């Protein structure tokens, strides 16, 4: 069998016992597509708390060729919300459904842990990623203006897993409010546009 055949791939769950080896490979894989790397704390933040929601694709030489990093927690006292934070597949391995498989594993794991919904953001120029998630049933819920450092905008993609999620009330989140114009010097006296949807996650 040819070494590039998908059959040669192995999908595994992240294992904290192999942190040094896995995290290094993961960072390398993910940083490749980023102008600026995430700090080690970002990886630790996810893996320390939700290592079981992180899945890896390894080739037959046990080299990491794909990774998905996610988390799952109650969103502002409301629904149990899954978040797919990072997804990367090595360039020469793209187009074989590895990313879809990884995302499916993450979603299945979240469903098993009683997730109500799953959200993520993707750059609007990243049509491949959007297609992937939309095939899985995600919808674009909003567009985020100049969301990334390079000035590109993003779509928030959302997948509801249960009925009634849209009606679950959430608490107002201070960290979710936008920072702009917090001062209101125009003298109108009252804050404008209470928008509580400006959350990062």
């Amino acid at each position, binding site marked *: 069998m040819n070494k590039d055949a998908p059959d040669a791939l192995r999908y595994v769950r992240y294992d904290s016992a192999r942190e040094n080896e896995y995290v290094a490979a993961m960072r390398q894989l993910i940083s490749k597509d*980023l*102008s*600026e*790397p*995430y*700090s080690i*704390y*970002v990886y*630790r*933040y996810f893996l*320390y*708390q939700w290592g079981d929601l992180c899945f890896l694709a390894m080739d037959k030489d046990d080299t990491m060729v794909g990774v998905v990093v996610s988390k799952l927690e109650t969103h502002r006292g409301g629904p149990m919300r899954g978040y797919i*934070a*990072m*997804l990367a597949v090595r360039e020469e391995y793209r187009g074989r459904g590895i990313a879809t498989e990884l995302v499916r594993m993450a979603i299945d794991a979240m469903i098993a842990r009683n997730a109500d919904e799953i959200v993520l*953001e*993707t750059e609007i120029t990243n049509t491949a990623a959007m*297609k992937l998630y*939309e*095939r*899985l*049933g995600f*919808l*674009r*819920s*909003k*567009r*985020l*203006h*100049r*969301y*990334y*450092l390079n*000035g590109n905008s*993003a*779509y928030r993609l959302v*997948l*509801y*897993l249960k*009925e009634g*999620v*849209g*009606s679950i009330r959430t608490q107002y989140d201070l960290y979710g409010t*936008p*920072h*702009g*114009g917090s001062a*209101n010097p*125009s*003298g*109108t*006296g*009252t804050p*404008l*546009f*209470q*928008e509580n*949807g*400006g959350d*990062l996650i």
Partner: protein
Amino acid sequence: MLPNNEVRVPQPRVAQPAWDITAEFTEAAAKIKSGKLVKDELFTLFEAVGALEIMDSKMDSGYIAPGENQAQALEDDYDVRRELTPAEVVGLMDELLCHEMAWHMGHPLSQTLFTSIYLDKLLWPVPRTVEDAQFDRTRPATDLPLVNLVLRSYCLALVKACDFVHSRVAAEYFFEEEDFVTQLYNRNLLSVFDPSHFERLLDQAIDWINKEAEMDEKLRDAIRSRLVFRREFLLALDRDLDVLESRSTVNFVSCLSQLELLTDSVALGKSVPEAFSLKIQRKLASTVPPRPIVHISHEDALAHLKRLCQDAIDMQHMLDYHGPSNFKTAVWTLLSRKPQPSVYIRCLLQALIISDMTILGAVSVKQFLYDDIAELVLPSSILLQANTDEVELPTDPRFQIAQHMEGFVKRFAQPFVDTVRCACLNRCRIRRTLCHTVVDWDNLQMEAEDLDAQLRTLTSERPVPIPSGEPTYSYPLSSWAYHQKLIQLRLVLQMGFELSIYSPEELPGMYWYLSHICTTHLGHLDRIRTFTVAARKRDLMATSSRPDTSSQPSSAFHQSFRSLERLTTHLIAIDAFSIALHALYVLLARHQLLSPASSPQAYSSEKLRYELRMKPFIPVSLPELVPFQAFQKEANLEGDSDMTVLERASNAIAEARRAWETTLANGAFIEDPSSRTPLPSTTIEEDWKRDVKDTMRACIGTSLAIETIKKALAGPTEMATLEVAIPDAGSKARWHDWWVVPQVSEKKRN
């Protein structure tokens, strides 16, 4: 993908006094195994994303690699005292302009203007006097007027212009990072100095250049036009609010004329890339990783600047208040220009629209609110006329009405003004904000309903029989609030089309929903009209018994009926077009000509996707959310044959075309009947017309698509031989962002 963006980190918590924790730390550390990870419960993702790894060259801007010389790593050897050729000066000025515009577009100073070594020398250390701001403060200036007078005055005026832009934006409502980056890195944009210093310097520089007989004429003209532009731009920004008084945009007009000359001479410039350096980032007080210099092309920079000037000039056409609907139309139209006006323009507009609770510096917020209510629901009513100043007897109903109305104004004025100001946000934020304000207005409507009930006992209102119903009360204030909400619901959907939120398989349903909202709105306007007609009848009866009364109510009624008529025509146009597109998409979906984004293996069902799509409307009590089964039936036109659906599409598009024709003929603005002179034609009106004409083109495109389907359904071509393309928003084939018109054609035979 998670964004990597440190400024999204929340503000640090309040600092506490420092104390020595060595002992506590050692004790705690002794209890855990080596290599074990400890996470503070309060350590958030925001903090993780904002963290930097010191000694990592990609994250630590102060990192000096082994073997790297500290002086070399931090200092540039570019000599700001060196002589520059006129071509180099032009090149430097244009490069600085590109950086200035990149900053206007939302990039941080650290990656744009603050990469200029010349600017760095002028601004750091912070100069105490204008004289202090020299390229080299350590030695007396060399006798190089091209550098020390011409380039220096240009740079100083540029920085001062940035100071004006910075304070204008920071004073208004904007989104940090999304729209603009306000970070100054402990530098100061010469804010303490009066702009007259820099105008004087520019004048000296212009005088000098005019006398330079030996310089190549073209280069001399190029430098002069850049200096003149700087002076005019500085003046324009300095006096940007004066336009309310002066109605003059003369400085922006001169900027535009200089920009013509400037554009023609860009090619004369010689770039001096070594005068810009990333090393300056290492000195800027910031915790940001090193980030590359942002390069935008001269064309993009000049195009941005030209649009900024043009938008600023065109703004003067909306400064005269001609009633609420004209004002709202002008604001929305100007801000819907493509590309959207820059953040500076959007902030300037906010300042002009409302400051000190005054609209356009002329009309009180209360008056604006009352005008709008009068135009829609109460052309002549004691509610808007009662005044506590005139009636002081607390038992008098008029006194009580006035008191109730005062409370109403307090509660509703701000949200109402915000419905107008909302247009000043970036397009994504407009939609997101609407999703929230729709819920606020749902509550406001309920409050208004209570108020209506109290007021009608004070006015002794008599119920009016409405067609198809019992006698009922008018509920004027809540009717008006409901109207606001219905506009917002419609805009949420329309902005959704503009921002490409909906997937192909959602299009039939979303156009059905749009028509559903329009139909509801039309029904609401009918209800309002019934009460206005009844009020008019009462009014006529009252005046016929008192022939000496003025004709003022008559013209108010006339204006209100006309306004209702215009709103109705516009809504019919939108409604009919949505019905046509809905029917067309139903046919495409039935015949598998729409490729859906979701696969059969999707995790979500159509029902779940419907719930997600309707999330903003779930908390809204009126109009009630359409239950999924009913929605599905309507959206798919279940039970209707293809021919019935086709006929529906044909009829609707014909009606849409007529209604858009009438809308165009009605014009953007309502003429004031009391004014002798008609409203002057303006660029904003042209924009509005172009928008309607684009919509009409989209109608024609829809007609063509319907015709193609009709032929296919009738044979000889078959539906299976057709293919469908959905043009992207912003593309030429799209005609109008709000109308997703499919291109239906026969498949090319291979």
